[in-house]
């Protein structure tokens, strides 16, 4: 499995650290609702098929990424920055064949 980092280009999966389901959203820190926090910490959709997930390019540029991947075939369909609506990187970044960047998908309803 290889992941196309928008900064660094296509790299071996060994360079990346998995950080799990990207569709879960942290509750309001002021919230004291136990069920909401429990659901955030423990409950996962764990789909067989399309999965939106967080990876960090920890062995490279250290950027956090949202990767859309099929958990049955391991085919990756999109890679985007995890930060909401980030601007494109500056010209200083190496010009590799970066994949078409999607708008950040964080916060989208789970499919």
């Amino acid at each position, binding site marked *: *499995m290889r992941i196309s980092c928008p900064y660094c280009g296509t790299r*071996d*999966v*060994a360079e990346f650290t*998995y950080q*799990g*389901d990207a569709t879960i959203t942290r509750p309001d820190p002021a919230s004291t609702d*136990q*069920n909401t926090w*429990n*659901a955030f*910490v*423990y*409950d*996962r*959709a*764990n*789909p*067989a098929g399309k*999965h939106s*997930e967080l990876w960090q390019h920890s062995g490279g540029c250290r950027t956090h990424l949202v990767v859309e*991947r099929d*958990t*049955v*075939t*391991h085919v990756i369909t999109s890679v985007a920055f995890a930060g909401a609506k980030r601007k494109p990187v500056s010209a200083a970044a190496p010009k590799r064949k970066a994949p078409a960047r999607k708008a950040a998908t964080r916060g989208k309803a789970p499919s």
Partner: protein
Amino acid sequence: MVGNLKAEGAYVVYIGMRSVRVGGPALCRADGNMAEYSAFALLRNALSGNRDWKQAWRKPEPKPSYDVIVIGGGGHGLATAYYLAAEHGISNVAVLERGWLGSGNIGRNTTIVRSNYLLPQSTRFYEFSMKLWENLSHELNYNVMFSQRGILNLAHSPAQADDYIRRGNAMRLSGGDAEWLSAEEIGRKVPGVDVSGSARFPVVGGLLQPRAGTARHDAVAWGYARGADRRGVDIIENCEVTGFLRDGDRIVGVTTTRGEIRAAKTAVAVAGSTGRVMKLAGVDKLPIESHVLQAFVTESLKPFVDMVVTWGAGHLYMSQSDKGGLVFGGNIDGYNSYAQRGNLPIVEEVMSEMVAMFPSVARVRLLRSWGGVMDMSMDGSPIITTGPLPGMYLNCGWCYGGFKATPASGFSFAWTIARDEPHQINAPYTLDRFHRGVIIDEKGQGATPRLH
């Protein structure tokens, strides 16, 4: 937690459990019936050209309804059906298997059986399992080739040694067996291990559980299947569950690729496919992620290592099969996956760990590698419980330690299904323990399934 340990008398239990059993198939069962497999049967069938052996399990058509449906014809599902019939007299049971019997993790594991856990809930459960293993071939009249060759956890630093010794003491206090070995003793017992001071990760000692070992994994599935079948359980292969039948909230059966089947009780024991199956019942979220674990076997070698050895500087476990191949595995790949295959980085990591532990196997050729889907729970411990819906029972979250648990899992799940309440060994393994905050986190990793 210490309050749970009964220090007085524990040592007596420990000694008592080390009694040596004489293996081999029994001629007669405890109930007095002639055993189906015996020396006499072997002789009789040899004389008749081996034409009269009965099929180990029938291939029945599904009936319209049963008392209990067990979804999943793997080790745990078959063991559950067996104990439902053998212990609770419930034999109007169907085991529904999507593929062929034993095609999942029961045929994909590295066959290790052990009970070397730290927490009292875990040692109690896995010790119970170990005792069932010790009598399993006799109980099933089927040689599961349970070989108590011992498991040795290598420690590579004084801190790790302290941690292992603490675990060993916990095991002994709760009735298990554990011994501490020095590096010199390890060098004598397992000559292949690099115990020299110049090893990349020097060995400072190791924790041995002598009663641990390996078992023939397919035989466990086949033995439970035959035992259940002979007691009237229908094992229905190539029968995929496509949905659940409901009466209001209550689950009253399943729809399958072979028609509708109704039952008062529907039990789910599908390991890595738990997410898929439970979604069919409308349970969209569980404290589980499915991950892929790879395993490996080398070409056959002459006798090289006579126990299970694990490496503590990374994560590796290996043993030598009776055919001579070194069977080993390491960490899961570490990302959600339902594919029964993994990726190369973990292959490279496991190989490098293997060579660090046993430098002499560097030139041994790898014969096969494969993958299985693990239901990694949020605390690394399983879930065996009633619910989550009325009429439903759930057995999942085995991470990658399900094989050794097969007998106790089946036993306690059958108990839970038959009596609608947990046995004391599975009482802590509820589904709501996550939300109640009583997690059983053996490794102390928190809610990160890929690290358990």
